[in-house]
C-alpha cells in the first residue's frame, strides 16, 4: 500500500502524519530537566491525531505550507529531506506566520498540557477540575479600607 493511501478515518496519510510529528516534536521537545515527554510522544501524539480528525482542514493546509517551504528552500518535499533540512524547514515554518499555524499550535497545546506526566511536572494533580475542585485563598478584605475611606463615587442621575 502506498504511504499516501488513507486506509482509515485518519485524514492524514503516513507522510503527513510523520511531518506533523516532526513539527510538534520540534515545538515541544522532551526535557530531562523537567521530566516531561515530547509532544511527539506516542500517547500525546495519538491524542493530537484524535483532535486533528475532528478539524483536519487547517492541519492539512499547514502541512501543505510546510511542503512548499521544503520545496522552495531545499528542493524537495518535506518527507524527502534529511534531518538537518527538515529541522530548518520546520524552523522556517514556525516563523512563517502561516494562518494555519495557530491551529497546529492550539491542538498541540490542548493535548500536551493534559498529559499526566506533564501535569505532574507542573505540580498539578492529573485529574479534571470536577468534582474535587481547588482551594483559593479568601484574600485580605482590609485592603478595601482606602476605598471605603474615599467614599461615594457614583453619579447622581
Amino acid at each position, binding site marked *: 500500500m502506498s504511504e499516501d493511501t488513507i486506509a482509515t478515518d485518519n485524514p492524514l496519510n503516513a507522510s503527513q502524519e510523520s511531518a506533523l510529528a516532526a513539527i510538534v516534536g520540534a515545538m515541544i521537545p522532551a526535557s530531562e530537566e523537567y521530566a516531561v515527554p515530547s509532544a511527539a510522544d506516542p500517547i500525546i501524539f495519538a491524542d493530537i491525531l484524535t483532535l486533528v480528525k475532528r478539524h483536519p482542514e487547517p492541519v492539512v493546509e499547514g502541512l501543505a505550507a510546510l511542503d512548499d517551504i521544503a520545496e522552495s528552500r531545499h528542493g524537495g518535499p518535506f518527507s524527502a529531506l534529511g534531518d538537518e533540512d527538515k529541522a530548518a524547514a520546520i524552523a522556517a515554518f514556525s516563523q512563517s506566520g502561516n494562518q494555519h499555524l495557530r491551529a497546529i499550535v492550539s491542538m498541540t497545546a490542548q493535548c500536551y*498540557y493534559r498529559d499526566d506526566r506533564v501535569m505532574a511536572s507542573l505540580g498539578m494533580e492529573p485529574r*479534571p477540575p470536577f468534582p474535587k475542585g481547588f482551594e483559593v485563598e479568601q484574600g485580605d478584605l482590609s485592603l478595601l479600607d482606602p476605598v471605603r475611606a474615599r*467614599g461615594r463615587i457614583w453619579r447622581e442621575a
Partner: protein
Amino acid sequence: MAEQPVDVLIIGAGASGAAVAWSLADTRMHIVCLEQGDWMNPAEYPSSGRDWESRAFGDMAISPNRRGRPTDYPVNDSNSPIAVANFNAVGGSTILYAGHFPRFHPSDFRVASLDGVGDDWPLDYETLEPFYAEDDRMTGVSGLSGDPAYPAKQSVLPPVPLGKSGDTLARGFNDLGWHWWPSDTAVATAAHDGRDQCINLGACTSGCAQGAKASTDITYWPHAMRAGVEVRTRCRVREISVNDDGMASGVWYYDADGEERFQAAEVVVMACNGVGTPRILLNSTSEQFPDGLANSSGLVGKNLMFHPYASIQGIFDEELDGFRGPGVCIWSKEFYETDESRGFVRGFTYEINRGRGPVATAMTGMMSGRIPWGAEHHRAYRDLFCRITGMVAICEDLPEEHNRVTLDPELSDIHGIPAPKIDYTLSENSRRMLDFAVERASEVLRAAGATDIISESPIAAGGWHLMGTARMGKDPARSVVNEWGRSHDVKNLFIVDGSIFVTSAGVNPTRTIQALALYIADQIKKRLANLFD
C-alpha cells in the same frame, strides 16, 4: 400541524425567557416556552473531563459558527470586528457566561441628559431596583455590600474569594488610589436554593458542573416548571403570524423532528437576545407588516450594541491563582463616569479575571512569542504558568443605527431560516475608550508588580452582549417597544431580552435583562384586564 392555543407563548428559554416565565407563572395562565436548544446535563460539562480546556475550542465554544451544534444557527459576522458569542439551550448564554453580575448605575439610564449622547431610557434605576433585588434572590448574587460606586444594595451571599490574584491587583489599585471592590457575581459562594457552593473549578465559561453558577436552567426554570410552565426544546421558531386585526396570532416553528407546526397564542413574548429577536421579527413579514413585525419605526435590527472589550494581562514573578477559582474576582469603577478630559464620553468597568489554565497559558505564550519552540519551551512556559493575571475593560457602546442585524440573503440554518447578518463598526469614541483602558490597566498591573503586559483590543471573539436592536421608548417613531416592553405596533407582542436596551452601559447586561423581564412581567400582571388597550 396546529397546537391548542396557549395564553402566553415565550420564545427563548435563556436569561430573560426564564425570568418572565417564572414571574408570569403565578397568574396560572397557560404558558409555553419554545426553545431551539436542549436541556444541558451538568455532568457532561467540560470540567468533568481532562479535556476541559479543549472543549472550549469545540462543542462548548462561544461562537455558534465554530460550535456548530444542531441546535445552533449560523451568524454572518464577517463584517464586524467583534464576533457574536452565544449559546442555545435552556439557560441560553447563561450556560457559558462567566457570572459577572453587575447592575446598571443610575447614570446609565440618563445618558442623553447627563452627557448629550444616545437617548435616555423611559425608566430609571429606582423603578428597576425592586426587580434587581428580586432577581438577586432568584440568582443568589454573591458580593459585598457597601460598594461606593453604587447606591446601597444588599448581597445575598458572601463575595467570591479574592485569592492571590485579587489581592495582588487590589494592591495595584490601592497604590494608584483607584476604586476597586469584590465583584457582584452569579456564582453561589454558599448553598442557595438547591444549588451547591462554588468549589473553584475555574471552568465557569464552559458550564458549571457543580451547579454553583446561576444559569437559568437551574435557577428560574425549575420554579417556573413546578408552577406549570411548559418548556418545549428543539423547537425553532421561524416567524410570528398576525391576524386581520394586526395582532400576533401565534408562531410557526419546527419541532425536534423537523416538522413544521403552528402554535396559537394570545400573547407572544420574544426572549431570543439582541440578534435572535430581530432575526425572527424581520423574518415575520406580511401584507400588514412588509418590513417585518413591529417595525414601523424601521429600527428593528438597528442600533446593535456589543460591549467592545479590551484584555490587559500582566506577567508576575510570583505564583497567582492560575487555573483555580472562578473567573470573576474584583472590579473597578474608577473610570465609569464621563470625564471629557479623557477624550471620550461615558466609561467602562475593569473586571479582573484571575488567571488561566495550562492550555490557555501555552496558547497565550506561544502566540505572543513569549514561549519559543524548542528546548527553551519548558522554562519559558513555567515563567508564565500561574503567573498571569489581569483584567478586561468592558466599554460602553453607544447606539448607532448603522450597526445592525439584517437577514442574510444566502446563509440559512438547517431549517432554511435566514441567518442573521451583522454589520458593525467600532466607533471613534469606543476606540479612544479602549486605548485609554489599555493604558490605565497597564499602570495598575505595573503598580501591582507585573513585569510584562499582554493586551488585545478589541477582543475579536468577544461579542458576548447583544443589545439595542428593538429599543424601548415612549415615541413609536424612535422605538420598537414602549416603556413596559409592549410592541408599539402589535399590542399582544412583548420583547424582554437585551434587544430593548436603549443604551448599553459599561457593565455585563444579564442582571439588567432579567430585572427588565421581571418588571415587564409585573406590568403585564398589573394590566391583565386591559393589556391590549
